[in-house]
């Protein structure tokens, strides 16, 4: 029991649940002090085991659905000692102080004979596990967990070897573990960096965009719904823009996120509003319309900005609903790399420029002409081509293939615009165009990810989307067969999340938790009450066993037996194997026959035997005994 108290103490200390740990400890200590124990049947153990399982499942569901800053699994881990407490108390307060295996493992319930286990050590291990739920940079948990676990192992150490050897092995294991946990943390750091590097090739990176130019095969993006937008018209939402082109990848020259918003309040221009509903996992880059004036509804979350227009959202709940005020016209400075053209692309640019003949025209007309040129002369395809060199692939696209996906069009537009002296950048984001009549919202899928050029014309960054308009239809054809099914479930889940979000906005989180805790408490009270009322199963600890065991059958304490004792060794004594009914008939005493009737009722129908009748039985017997004494005295 000491190990249980120590590990509970460790749990309370690390998780700051002092009061809960103190209550649990009291319950455990009380089990050793109280003489009262329950004589439970195996089925009752199983029933309580099932109750704990249900409680556990309810908790998992609740924590998964609730809005929490902490991940649900860690909340479960943190509260494991509380979930498993009923099981431990079951053992500690039961008469045989052991737990049938089937209480915890459903699969062994049908096995004969019933196997028992001592749950105290597993419970200590659970407390140690739960103590590790919090992050603590120091090595305190490491030391405490080693001491605690060594305490658990101490109970099963082999007696075949010298004790010193056991200590040496434990010290060696501690040393190795210290080195191991340091290495594991280091390895995790390394793996995480590599993983981020790998993942960012597929997701919007505000600093670097790896294009598919130069990739071969076919481009395929999923139908997964990224977010939903309540807007008045289709539009382009930008996540990031890039100004430097290095072969296959684009870089953002100004990559430091800061807390200074990269947008300014509109100067008397009309403002439109967007409403975005989005599920989040970690920090994410927001997809925003041109000319953002304000981002609302993200109180509590952190927003960070780059000068090139990327906005990072972090510390947000897993579902958000935010509003964006925008003008549709993005202002901003021109930077030094916005006119840079890599020398390896000069060749095809000259060829195309000769064909376009746009010199001396206004930037507005050039942008329109380039857009027109691509839309009429080029085709959209998801086939990535056969050229694996990124530079040659772009040249191949411009001069020979004349077909490609949006990145080709966007990159080529940027370079052509720059060649005419118009500052331009590559923009990445989403095309909002699929309207769901069912949800009354625009749906943005992963395959709606899009790239386009933005050009600085007349002081405003304008979108120059040169990709032929059929690209959305072609993408649409790539939709999976089961997309409607997926959409249906996605919509249902979205509605649910939206509802939960609204609830969370309306209610105080703590009130909800209190409600759930009350439900659990009521269930626990019912369980304890049900156990308590099974009084016939109640028996005291060993010191009382001898007294109580006589009365473990109903009616065994009937006063009729006093009469039987009084008449023993007389001619009227009850004979061996003689039933009470036959005996009283033989004695031919009407009072005794009445007493026997009452006795039978108490003995075999104790449920319906009222306390008044019980008193009557007692008094009748006492009267009869007194009368008997009187007769004897006479």
């Amino acid at each position, binding site marked *: 029991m000491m190990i249980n108290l120590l590990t509970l103490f460790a749990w309370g200390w690390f998780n700051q649940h002092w009061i809960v740990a103190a209550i649990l400890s009291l319950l455990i200590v009380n089990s050793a002090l109280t003489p009262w124990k329950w004589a439970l049947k195996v089925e009752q153990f199983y029933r309580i085991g099932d109750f704990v399982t249900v409680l556990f499942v309810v908790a998992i569901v609740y924590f998964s659905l609730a809005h929490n800053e902490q991940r649900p699994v860690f909340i479960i881990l943190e509260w494991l000692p509380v979930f498993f407490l009923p099981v431990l108390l079951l053992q500690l307060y039961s008469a045989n102080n052991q737990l049938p295996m089937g209480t915890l493992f459903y699969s062994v319930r049908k096995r004969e004979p019933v196997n028992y286990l001592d749950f105290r050590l597993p419970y200590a291990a659970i407390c140690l596990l739960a103590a*590790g739920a919090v*992050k603590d940079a120091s090595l305190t948990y490491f030391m405490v967990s080693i001491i605690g676990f060594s305490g658990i192992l101490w109970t099963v*150490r*082999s007696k*075949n070897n010298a004790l010193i*050897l056991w200590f040496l*092995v434990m010290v060696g294991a501690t040393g190795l573990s210290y080195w191991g946990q340091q290495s594991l943390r280091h390895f995790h750091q390394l793996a995480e960096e590599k993983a981020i590097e790998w993942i960012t090739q597929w997701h919007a990176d505000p600093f670097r965009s790896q294009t598919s130019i130069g990739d071969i095969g076919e481009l395929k993006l999923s139908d997964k719904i990224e977010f939903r937008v309540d807007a008045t018209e289709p539009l382009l939402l930008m996540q990031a823009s890039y100004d430097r082109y290095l072969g296959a990848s684009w870089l953002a020259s100004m990559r430091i996120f800061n807390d200074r918003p990269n947008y300014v309040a509109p100067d008397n221009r009309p403002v439109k509003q967007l409403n975005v509903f989005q599920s989040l996992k970690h920090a994410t880059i927001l997809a925003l319309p041109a000319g953002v004036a304000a981002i609302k509804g993200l109180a509590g979350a952190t927003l960070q900005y780059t000068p090139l227009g990327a906005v990072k959202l972090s510390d947000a709940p897993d579902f958000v609903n935010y509003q964006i005020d925008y003008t549709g016209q993005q202002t901003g400075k021109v930077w030094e790399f916005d006119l840079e053209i890599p020398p390896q692309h000069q060749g095809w640019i000259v060829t195309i420029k000769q064909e376009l003949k746009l010199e001396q025209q206004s930037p507005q007309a050039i942008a329109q002409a380039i857009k027109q040129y691509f839309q009429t002369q080029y085709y959209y395809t998801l086939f990535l081509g056969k050229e694996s060199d990124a530079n040659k692939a772009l040249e191949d696209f411009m001069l020979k293939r004349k077909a490609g996906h949006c990145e080709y069009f966007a990159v080529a537009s940027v370079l052509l615009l720059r060649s005419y002296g118009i500052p331009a950048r590559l923009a990445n984001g989403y095309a909002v165009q699929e309207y769901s009549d069912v949800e009354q919202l625009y749906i943005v899928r992963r395959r709606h990810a899009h790239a386009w050029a933005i050009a600085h014309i007349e002081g405003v960054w304008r979108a120059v989307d040169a990709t032929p308009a059929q690209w959305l239809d072609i993408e649409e054809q790539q939709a999976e067969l089961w997309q409607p099914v997926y959409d249906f479930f996605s919509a249902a889940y979205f509605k649910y999340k939206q509802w939960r979000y609204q609830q969370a906005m309306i209610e105080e989180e703590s009130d909800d938790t209190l409600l759930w805790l009350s439900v659990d408490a009521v269930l626990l009270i019912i369980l304890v009450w049900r156990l308590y009322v099974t009084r016939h199963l109640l028996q005291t600890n060993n010191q009382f066993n001898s007294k109580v065991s006589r009365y473990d059958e109903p009616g065994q304490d009937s006063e009729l037996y006093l009469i039987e004792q009084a008449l023993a060794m007389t001619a009227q004594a009850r004979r061996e194997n003689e039933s009470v009914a036959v005996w009283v008939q033989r004695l031919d005493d009407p009072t005794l026959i009445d007493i026997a009737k009452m006795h039978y009722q108490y003995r075999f129908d104790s449920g319906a035997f009222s306390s008044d009748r019980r008193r009557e039985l007692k008094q009748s017997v006492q009267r009869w005994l007194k009368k008997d004494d009187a007769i004897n005295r006479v």
Partner: protein
Amino acid sequence: MLTRWVLRQYAQIFRLSRWMRVHFTAMGHLCLAVWLISGIFGIDTKASNSYQLFVFVNTLLVLALLGSVFNRFKAGIKRQLPRYATVGEPFTYKVFVSNRTDKNYHGLVYIEHLNEVFPGYQALADFYQRQHKPWYRRAISFRLWRRYLMYLRGGYMGEQPLSVLAAQQTEGIKIRCTPLRRGKLNFAGAYIAKPDLLGLFRRLYFVPEVQSCLVLPKRYEVAALNLTGNRQYQSGGVNLANSVGDSSEFMSLREYRQGDALNHIHWKSFARHGRLIVKEYQDEYFVRRALLLDTYQGALANELFEAAVSVAASLVMSERQQDALLDLMFVGQQAYRFTAGRGVDHLPHLQEVLAAVQPSDAEFFGRLKKSVLEHSQQCSSLICVLLHWDQERQDFIRYLITQGGPLAVFLIHDGTLTLEQIAQPPEHFYLINVQQIAEDLAAL
């Protein structure tokens, strides 16, 4: 194809789970659980401290596994098995474990090892096809596979801890075994499990000791059957009732009368008395019953066949040794006829025969019929234990009734038959429900 692959995986999973079960102690299993849970939660070292516990438990488990290399032991065992056991009735036997080292050992565990053959696809398919389950439950699950393996193995014994085994000493322990099927229980040897220093991992030492024990079919109380039959002439008397040829039972010695056969002269008495003395023989008449067991299982569940064997065994047990001869007839690869009673053989021997009876693959009822008809003249009465009630069997029973001998028929069924459904049943016709054999036999 897929099923075969799945069965192979079952065998692998079973081997792995058994390896885990016998090699890790209870604390070892707790460590494994902690290792797994802390590993899952500790995968993100930035989210919690669980990874620190994971590393420590991992180190302990690795040290325990490595330490088992230095864990050595030497032992011998000697078993005292009973000759017979009965299906489903636990029996206890004694094992003497000797420590052949010069050191006292604590915490050793004795694990009995029965011979086992992993069930093949065909055997399993046959076994479960007979269960007549609905189509969605016909797939052979791992649980069913394991249950069948247990059935083939024949018995269940738990692990038996040896508290202290002193150096060069022998300790006797009692093992409780529950036989799960009829036939031979083959003991291959035993494992002695010795825990490591930390008490997490056990090293197993196999001690071969091949022995066997015969498990008899389950037997029930049978109410006395009143089959009134005449005594029949038994050529050759009791001693030769089970043999062939012409013989009579020896009765007494008497003086030679003219016409007596010369080979009846008792030469020893002639030498002693100086006059011819001959041995007198008397033809023997006594009650001889035949018990016919239908072993054609067909598509019936195994349970029914086992019930038929149990009923036959119960009927054999109900015979009193000195009263009559009992012929047990059934068909396997050939038609068998074993005789016991009245000093010819012990009736328990028939139980041994029944312990080994296997279902006949094809329809061999014709052969059995022939064998019965050949011996029907010698039998006072006939008891048939049948599994089917088809036209052939009905005709056979009808023929036997016309022969006039007393006849009792026991038909084993799965609870779907009633007496009303049986057309023209013989006088002694009993339906035995496989779910309540004991009740049905007691209520004859």
